[in-house]
């Protein structure tokens, strides 16, 4: 059965993020008032990286279950890490966790369960700054992803299939991404095909959509395109999504609209999980 390989330090998997940094990302983000799409993407990536690191955290430190890369596409197509990680294509999660650009402190307001509010200080590491310039060479980014994954799969041929998470407003300027996305999804480890998931950030103020199973309710052409190039969700991920009350039918795809993909990280199996409602 595919998508069953154990994720371990000896047999890690790979998360590769493709981040739209084109000029159009300076426009307002429909998912969150007062924010540009570029800010929305940077926040989403920083949150995803933070969640990946926390997922691998144990009492003694952090375990290298994941190798992680961020490719920006806009004025150029290149690895987007800054600081000591600059120009690195893939970085083991421990190294990533130890080298954010900075760690901000944010305040979260919570219900204290007794009618009052509780303020919680949270550490928010930042690896990626918002950028918006140039065109949208999504095809080039997908091609670079293929190159990077070829190397990763060569090193870990039995790995849980690498996950590529593309975050964009959808308007590729270097041709249709469908053929190159198809070639990316055709790559495989012994455990199954590479997974390509897409998050479409739109300026339209519309309700978020998560893991749909058809194009029917997607009103924007770019949404439909990104839906079409997204991989179907593997069965285990669908089951995990359903156990959290999300609808994920048998034909659901790894696509979200004006939403983030953080849930995908929760759905990966690293052993006994702690249900959300127990935390």
């Amino acid at each position: 059965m595919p998508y069953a390989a154990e994720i371990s330090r000896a047999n890690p998997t790979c998360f590769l993020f493709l981040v739209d940094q084109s000029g159009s990302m300076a426009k307002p983000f429909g998912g969150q008032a007062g924010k540009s799409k570029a800010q929305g993407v940077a926040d989403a990536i920083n949150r995803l990286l933070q969640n990946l690191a926390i997922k691998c955290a144990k009492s003694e430190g952090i375990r290298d279950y994941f190798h992680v890369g961020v490719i920006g596409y806009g004025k150029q197509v290149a690895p987007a890490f800054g600081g000591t990680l600059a120009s690195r294509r893939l970085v083991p999660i421990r190294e990533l966790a130890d080298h954010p650009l900075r760690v901000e402190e944010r305040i979260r307001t919570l219900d204290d369960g007794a009618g009052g509010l509780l303020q919680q200080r949270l550490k928010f590491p930042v690896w990626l700054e918002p950028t918006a310039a140039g065109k949208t060479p999504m095809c080039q980014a997908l091609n670079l992803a293929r190159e990077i994954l070829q190397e990763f799969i060569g090193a870990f041929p039995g790995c849980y299939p690498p996950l590529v998470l593309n975050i964009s407003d959808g308007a590729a300027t270097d041709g249709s991404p469908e053929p190159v996305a198809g070639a990316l999804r055709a790559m495989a480890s012994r455990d199954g095909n590479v997974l390509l998931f897409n998050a479409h950030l739109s300026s339209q103020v519309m309700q978020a959509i998560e893991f749909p199973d058809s194009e029917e309710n997607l009103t924007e052409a770019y949404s439909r395109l990104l839906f079409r190039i997204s991989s179907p969700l593997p069965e285990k991920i669908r089951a995990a999504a359903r156990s959290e009350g999300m609808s994920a039918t048998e034909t659901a795809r790894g696509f979200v609209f004006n939403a983030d993909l953080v849930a995908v990280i929760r759905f990966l199996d690293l052993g006994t999980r702690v249900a959300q409602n127990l935390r």
Partner: protein
Amino acid sequence: MRWQSFFLPKRGHSADEFEDAFAGDPVAGRFAIADGAAESSFAALWARLLVEAFVTPGRELSVNGSWLAPLQQRWAADVDGLTIPWYGEAKRSDGAFATFLGLVVTCADQYAGGTCAGGTWRGAAVGDSCLFHVSEDGIQVAFPVCRAADFGNRPALLGSRSDARTCAVRAKEAWGTWQSGDRLLLMTDALAQWFLAEAERGQQPWFAIEELQRFPNRPDALRSWLEDLRDRGSLRNDDVTLLVIDL
């Protein structure tokens, strides 16, 4: 009453990454196993606190809030002062989690020589750490999981920071009577799932465990048996703990 313990870390993990815990006091007739949840931090410590507290003589059987609260305080006292990097803080603040099974065995029929002809056992469980009561006729009781298909990766858990009052609702209890010659087996989930799957397909997995008991001081015998099961795909790669109580 004789008891033996066997344990082996998940393949690819070192001994200090083992997150199961067990404890036993044959005089008090109290035994416990716990399985720290992989996706939580400081779970081995939490599992150990649970089992050690449970086997302390004189305690009630109940796994309830008043039993749990002081253990939660001890866990917090041990970890809250530690300086850890940002990525460790989230899981520390969520708390550690573990499944748990506690067992109290009592003798109802003591002979003059101190041996016991029979008695009762009572178990309390949260999650999928399991107890099997095995007699010469096979499995008498499987508790709290009865079918191999019912194991998942989201069992009920005892949390080191969860509201202690909700715990009484989550703990299941069972009891039974035993006779001399019976055995009680306590297993964490991976081995328990194998044990049930074998029984479901008409095998007698308790004989494999009897075989293992012949080499009590040979960790290599346990390792080669379990690694073979893992190689064949019969045993999930996970920490394994087994307690065998010969009555």
